[in-house]
């Protein structure tokens, strides 16, 4: 008996992506560049986050014909984004046959209270988080992979660092806590007790955790890896830079060799201009993406 859509195959695909770079792309041509550079998967979008930010208005799931073109163009896994809580966009993406769905704060949320109940799907989901409680709520809803949110489309790593540090230090806190403190900690972080106990015992998240939102350079990628990420999402950082091919390749190398300063130094040379960066403090609060979802 062959069983499809099991928790094991959902989380297993994320395990296969570890140590790799998942790149945002908007067409088949960019998908091929990403694959050629060594990306372990691509994220199909209609616009990269910095353009979504610039355009304003409502950002929705991409046109499915673009996603189909991309699926035909590359052999690596293709992910695509649905709006937070928009389970029908998710159904459509599942029907299209994408390999992973990102229920993403980069798109305009469809539901300000509820996320998609992801256990209903055979396709696996990745969701964003700013802290451990948010990660565990998403996992309880069925997310088979987590990514820290950072602040997408800024080329500024500061929020990504804040979020991965928050997740990693809360994991340590749960590990060091006494059994009789776990319920209070679960209440405080708004996380399911069962998953809090799992982390207390194992010392790690039960699913793979990538870093996202602001990675623009090879050093940024290696920084997130050294802080404990399992892999990297790069959004606007590649195709909004002056030399996407070279930068994509360099970020892939830096993610593998994140503990090797000589290699990081070497691959960081002659990459041209990085994407233009944004100071988070200059962004009006209502335009911040990371605060979407809970």
């Amino acid at each position, binding site marked *: 008996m062959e*069983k499809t859509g099991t928790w094991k195959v959902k989380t297993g695909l994320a395990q*296969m*992506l*570890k140590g790799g770079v998942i790149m945002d792309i908007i067409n088949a041509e960019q998908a091929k560049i990403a694959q050629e550079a060594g990306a372990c998967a691509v994220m199909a979008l209609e616009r990269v986050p910095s353009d979504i930010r610039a355009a304003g208005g409502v950002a929705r799931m991409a046109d499915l014909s673009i996603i189909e073109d991309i699926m035909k163009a590359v052999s690596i896994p293709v992910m695509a984004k649905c709006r937070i809580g928009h389970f029908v966009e998710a159904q459509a993406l599942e029907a299209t046959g994408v*390999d992973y769905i990102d229920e993403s704060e980069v798109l305009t949320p469809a539901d300000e209270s509820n996320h998609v109940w992801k256990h209903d799907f055979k396709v696996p989901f990745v969701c964003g988080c700013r802290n451990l409680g948010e990660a565990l709520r998403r996992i309880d809803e069925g997310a088979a992979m987590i990514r820290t949110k950072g602040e997408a489309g800024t080329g500024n790593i500061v929020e990504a660092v804040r979020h991965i540090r928050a997740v990693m230090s809360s994991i340590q806190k749960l590990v060091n806590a006494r059994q009789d403190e776990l319920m209070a900690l679960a209440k405080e972080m708004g996380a399911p007790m069962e998953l809090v106990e799992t982390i207390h015992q194992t010392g790690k998240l039960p699913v793979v955790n990538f870093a996202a939102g602001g990675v623009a350079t090879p050093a940024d990628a290696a920084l997130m890896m050294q802080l404990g990420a399992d892999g990297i999402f790069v959004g606007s950082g590649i195709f909004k830079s002056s030399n996407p091919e070279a930068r994509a390749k360099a970020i892939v190398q830096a993610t593998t060799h994140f503990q090797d300063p000589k290699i990081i130094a070497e691959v960081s040379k002659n990459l041209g201009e990085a994407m233009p960066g944004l100071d988070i403090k200059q962004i009006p609060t209502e335009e911040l993406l990371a605060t979407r979802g809970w």
Partner: protein
Amino acid sequence: MKIGVLASQGAFAEHIATLHRLEVDTTPVRLTRHLTSLDGLIIPGGESTSISKLMLGYDLMDEIRNLAKNGLPILGTCAGMILLAKKIPDSDTEPIGVMGITARRNAFGRQKDSFETDLSIPVLGEKPFPGIFIRAPLIEQVNDGVEILARLADYTIVAARQEKLVAAAFHPELTDDMRFHRYFLDIVTGDR
């Protein structure tokens, strides 16, 4: 005994964890200098194009190819199996190419077709082995001198051995069943 696990990209930590449970000394391999004094090597699952490009970047490809030709035991799972194969149809990925098999990539389809099934693997004994197939390849053809280790119910070949090289389309590193790793370690020590 020391076993290297190629750590360019993919599920290398899971293989290392299994080897630790078997109390085997391991080292992650990212550069050629990590290949010295190894008794065996594991190439994990991951994305074969990504792993192949990372291997080409720092001369790992040639070095591993030479070691394999000189008899280094290698276990390749999923992407690792693809990289061991001499032939990968419809792909411009460069494999290590030391094992006489033809490996078809994503042979069962996309992620929605990924599956779990109980596998019969005679060399591991009668108890079925938990087969986890994730965007898995299959072995389309085997050359002379290649022993078939496992087939699905429809006779699709999913594991094979050629002397000290072992390839599996599935992921023993994602299960608690350590028999497949033990089988490989027996090949390393010359007991199989």
